[in-house]
């Protein structure tokens, strides 16, 4: 349908201090309405303290077909995890 509203991706911050998380998408004619619609569709059960919306078309995503060259190479490189360092007791929880 040509006249359909554009699709928006919705991000909600659940509590102060946490990052916004993608929760889903919706249709709206513009950003202002997208925020209102997001409030009505995604925060009915007290899920959020902040809403971000972004036009789905503005998101550039990696191609699923590129999964192997993009992600497989990091698979076997355990030395990139900082698990080989001894952390002194007095540093505490990192």
């Amino acid at each position, binding site marked *: 349908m040509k006249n359909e*509203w554009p699709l928006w991706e919705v991000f909600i911050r659940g509590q102060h201090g946490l990052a916004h998380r993608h929760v889903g998408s*919706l*249709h*709206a*004619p513009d950003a*202002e*309405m997208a925020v*209102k*619609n997001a*409030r*009505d*569709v995604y925060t*009915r059960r007290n899920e959020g303290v902040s809403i971000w919306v972004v036009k789905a078309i503005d998101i550039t995503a990696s191609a699923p077909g590129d999964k192997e060259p993009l992600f497989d190479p990091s698979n076997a490189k355990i030395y990139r995890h900082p698990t080989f360092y001894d952390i002194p007791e007095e540093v505490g929880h990192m």
Partner: protein
Amino acid sequence: MTTAIKTDTALFDLALRMGDNALILAQRVGAWCGHAPALEEDIALANVALDLIGQAKMWLSLAGEIEGKGRSADDLAFLRDARQYRNALLVEQPNGDFAHTLMRQFLFDAWHHPMLVALKSSADKRVADIAGKAEKEARYHLERSEDLIIRLGDGTEESRQRMQTALGALYPFAGELSAADAVDADLAARKIAPDLGDIGKGCAAYLKGVFADATLNAPESAAVRKGGKQGLHSEHLGYILADMQFLQRAYPGATW
């Protein structure tokens, strides 16, 4: 020695009027559930209806408490006939097309929000408490309605035409909300409720500004249609109640 406590009938009426406005509008708006033009609007309307049902419950519980005859919010909602309902005629008007539904909501919200703001300073603490809770919801309802009225009024040729038709049809019902009778005067004198004339003036100025932005024209000299606040309703309320009250009438005391 026992003294019979006289029911504060004006306060009882205020609680009924506030509660019945919310309840009947919720029943009307709720009928859109599953039928609105877009999923997002559908959920938004259902949210508004649920907010209003919550408010109706608080007001009608208070009404039952003031009356002192042991009637609960449910008793008042489901076991009163049309003549005992005190909602304004505006809220019982049919849903019509989406423009009528939005215009009815906007005309109500434009009065409801300032009314609740004023009731937050009521001399009766119970009234002030309910208004404090309801006002936040009404503020969002008004923000949303105003936005939609401007978008659709100042929208396409068709949307403007539909909004203008809805405004012409519903505007005569808006005045009743701010038309004070003896009950309102009594409550205002006791600082339980605001002077409705002041609310009406603020509301009229606000509406004028929004209609200008929406490129809509309110009828110049429309007669105010009223009576609902005193229990004299249009033919629509009976049908609403028949629908809403069927279960309790057919199966008294049914619960689930």
